[in-house]
């Protein structure tokens, strides 16, 4: 018989794996759309100097 601690650990690991395996989704870090746009754009911001040349 599985005890409650094991049950909880299994549920949490399952949850964690679900989050880990799902494809990238736009992340709402704040309640500000512009700020979130900036934070979600890892590729372009802050824009490196080399890409401005």
């Amino acid at each position, binding site marked *: 018989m599985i005890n*409650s*601690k094991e*049950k*909880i*650990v299994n*549920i*949490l*690991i399952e*949850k*964690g*794996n679900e*989050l*880990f395996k799902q*494809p*990238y*989704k736009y*992340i709402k*870090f*704040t*309640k*500000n759309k*512009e*700020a979130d746009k*900036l*934070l979600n754009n*890892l*590729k372009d*911001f*802050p*824009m*490196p*100097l*080399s890409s*401005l040349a």
Partner: protein
Amino acid sequence: MDRQIKAERAWLIPYEVSEEIEGFEFSTLLRVNQENMIKIFKRKSLHRFNEIMGKNFYLAIRKIHNDYQDDASNIWKGNPRSATIVRRFLEFNGVGIKIATMAANILARDFKIPIKDYINIDISPDVHVMRAFKRLGFISKDASNDDLIYCARELNPMYPGIFDLSCWEIGRYWCRPNEPICEKCYLSRCCNKNI
């Protein structure tokens, strides 16, 4: 920045700075000296610790300039080990284990950045995570940050940080310090409720 203020407020800081200096291009950020960065933090009251965080923000820009060729993504480029990423974050002024592991976890879990292993992405010793772990009966009521970290390592050695977001959400939204909303928590049936 995520220190003793709400996460949403901390995450807003880069945007607030970009508004103030009219751009978030690296060249624009580099033009702001330490004194002016602290002034921006103070004027806009961006943080509880404006002097320290303004300085840390400035030093982070300088570090990315000096060590990572003006490109923050060089910190995690090339499929590095988790220990490498965490160590690189720890090298930034003001970054401790909580922020370093949280940042590595966000890169792996949310941004899907390829990382060779997850063994050194620990659980972040955050107040919400800590409360959830205590009430679930995983650690004692007087447990330290180290107790939390080693407990998560023991429970899931290959990726201890896997518990991070779920427990943060449980602690933030349902397992509150006062009047927890147990009936809404999905762990309610098996939780020890050490409240």
